[in-house]
């Protein structure tokens, strides 16, 4: 709840803004069966398509999985240059907006005031954007680059450790620096720029132009009134499918990882029936997400995001102070330097030899981030009213990048130090380089620090709550899109999407097919990359028509 308007005073407008005049009335295509309020046909087609995909995937697993995986492989290996160029464009657009006079445009009109304070806002966008990924890849990715021969190393560097033997100090340092820079590249400016472009465009077209808060609105400048017909339906349905499959498959995988973590921490030697445990975890996560969506944006999603940010900060500070503190502080600055020096060769889309890295990691990541961008972008947009474009880019691009860097330096740096000190004896070496057990990499690193039992439990709680915050914010986003941009649709609808997502995850986990549908979700990154590039143009055009504060 925010400002109330006292009608006895002269009603101040939100200040000048360039409202788009359209004949479309929000909710005009909605139908109200059983007291619901859903968009026709987006709700029905999305829901049926999900059911159909799940059934087909379960029934024809052996045929479907190679097909989807091949599609993903094709996109990342043949169109890697496209993803890399698109990623660079998003970063440049954001940086351009940051320094240009357009940075003065305020989301929601010249006189709008922010709906959320910095802390709550930041907590929510981080929890929705990459919280869970940081937990999973924070140790894994730097260590992997540091010591796993897997084709060509990016930047032409050698490995820091080969067959358990440490290379000479200069090579080790070069490998460490390469590993950190490459990891930060995947978690820094580029992913956040993708989110920022979508979020800013959605916020602009909803809060300044007065169009419904749904993905199709960005394309009003391109399609005009036709956007309320099939071109718009297709964009919205794609967004719903990408979001739902992205969330459901991560939920499925995440539950498996969490159950592995629980087995590790409590010394249960390989939980025999991981599927059952994982299904219980999915049920638990969905139940908490359900409570959260029923408590609403402020009482649920925001609260959980803040709790999680607090917990993550505790874990981060703990590792910084208990780990190699001074080394980490020095490395933080040298890592930033390495990131900016290597940014150009790493983001260069052509004439490179490191296929394994560029296609297997970078292009895959970019497709992945882009496929999440409708969801994360919608959610960020909804909570960003009242900020100027400059504030927005600072808080959605620059600060998250800095936080990612601190996180990666801390978790990856500590883990690499453990390998440098103890080589093959270190737990991380065992889980990442010797045997590839990615879900235990974080716990391996923590196990060599004091109070491992406690910090590991914090780690598991963080993983679970980050899933809850993805699940609840995702349900709100899908609910809004399938209600034609209404944020006040009947509560039963958000409950439906929240439960539906849990059921899809459980069905895929039990029946198999997580890999296939995840490959499909990632593949939606390709159409969305095109959609986003068009969105950049619409965004700049839309901003230029706005008055500046």
């Amino acid at each position, binding site marked *: 709840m925010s400002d109330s308007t006292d009608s006895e005073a002269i009603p101040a407008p939100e200040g000048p803004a360039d409202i788009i005049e359209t004949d479309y009335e*929000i909710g005009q295509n909605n139908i109200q069966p059983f*007291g619901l309020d859903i968009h026709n046909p987006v709700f029905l087609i999305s829901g049926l398509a999900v059911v159909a995909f799940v059934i087909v995937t379960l029934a024809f697993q052996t045929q479907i999985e190679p097909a989807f995986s091949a599609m993903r492989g094709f996109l990342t290996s043949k169109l890697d240059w496209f993803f890399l160029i698109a990623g660079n464009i998003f970063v440049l657009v954001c940086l351009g907006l940051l320094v240009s006079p357009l940075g003065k445009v305020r989301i929601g009109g010249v006189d709008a005031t922010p709906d959320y304070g910095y802390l709550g806002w930041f907590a929510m966008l981080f929890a929705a954007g990459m919280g869970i990924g940081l937990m999973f890849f924070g140790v894994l990715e730097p260590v992997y680059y540091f010591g796993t021969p897997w084709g060509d190393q990016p930047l032409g560097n050698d490995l820091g450790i080969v067959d358990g033997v440490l290379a000479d100090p200069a090579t080790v340092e070069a490998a460490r620096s390469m590993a950190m820079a490459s990891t930060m590249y995947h978690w820094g400016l580029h992913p956040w720029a993708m989110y920022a472009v979508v979020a800013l465009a959605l916020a602009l077209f909803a809060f300044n132009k007065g169009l419904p808060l749904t993905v199709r609105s960005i394309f009003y400048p391109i399609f005009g009134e036709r956007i309320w017909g099939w071109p718009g339906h297709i964009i919205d349905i794609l967004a719903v499918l990408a979001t739902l499959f992205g969330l459901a498959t991560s939920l499925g995988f995440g539950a498996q990882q969490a159950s592995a973590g629980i087995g590790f921490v409590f010394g249960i030697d390989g939980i025999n029936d991981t599927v059952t445990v994982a299904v219980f975890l999915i049920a638990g996560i969905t139940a908490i997400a359900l409570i959260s969506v029923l408590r609403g944006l402020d009482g649920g999603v925001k609260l959980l995001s803040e709790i999680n940010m607090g917990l993550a900060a505790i874990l981060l500070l703990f590792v910084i102070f208990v780990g190699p503190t001074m080394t980490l502080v020095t490395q933080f600055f040298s890592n930033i330097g390495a990131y900016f020096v290597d940014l150009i060769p790493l983001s260069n889309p052509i004439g490179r030899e490191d296929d394994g890295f560029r296609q297997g990691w970078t292009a895959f990541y970019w497709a992945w981030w882009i496929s999440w961008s409708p969801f994360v972008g919608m959610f960020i947009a909804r909570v960003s009213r009242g900020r100027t474009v400059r504030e927005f880019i600072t808080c959605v691009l620059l600060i998250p990048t800095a936080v990612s860097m601190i996180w990666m330096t801390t978790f990856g740096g500590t883990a690499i130090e453990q390998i440098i000190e103890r080589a093959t004896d270190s737990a991380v070496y065992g889980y990442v380089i010797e045997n590839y057990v990615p879900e235990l990499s974080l716990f391996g690193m923590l196990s060599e620090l004091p109070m491992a039992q406690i910090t590991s439990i914090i780690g598991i709680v963080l993983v679970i709550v980050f899933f809850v915050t993805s699940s609840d914010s995702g349900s709100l986003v899908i609910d809004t899109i399938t209600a034609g941009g209404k944020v006040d649709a009947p509560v039963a609808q958000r409950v439906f999407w929240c439960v539906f997502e849990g059921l899809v995850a459980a069905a895929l986990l039990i029946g198999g097919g997580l890999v296939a549908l995840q490959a499909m979700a990632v593949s939606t990154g390709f159409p969305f990359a095109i959609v986003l590039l068009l969105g950049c143009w619409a965004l700049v055009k839309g901003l230029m028509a706005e008055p500046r504060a």
Partner: protein
Amino acid sequence: MFSRIMVPVDLTHLEQLDKALTVSEELAQSFGAEIVYVSVTAETPTKIAHNPKEFAQKLEAFAAGRPGKSTTKSYSAHDPAIDIDKTLLKAIDETGADLVVMASHKPGIADFFWGSHGASLAAHTGVSVFVVR
């Protein structure tokens, strides 16, 4: 007996409010009370308005079109579907109303929420609540 009557209004479903509006106006007349129309909107664009300020103006225009003297107060909520009960309770405090007259709908907005707003409001406020069916 009553000096200020709060009437929650949903501008999207005015046709369902007829009875409640008439009741509130007649009560206001017989008690010499004033009417405050209260409405809750989302911050995102809605069918009614592009933004909360425009919504407030629409609510005023609605009030001006009703017989008798009245004031209005409009609220915006982050998540209206959930926050509405809380917001209406806040509105009772802020308007100083001593009677709430509200429509309870046949299938329509109120059914969006589990349990009726009228019931929830009556359970959580000290003032009188008149639920018009």
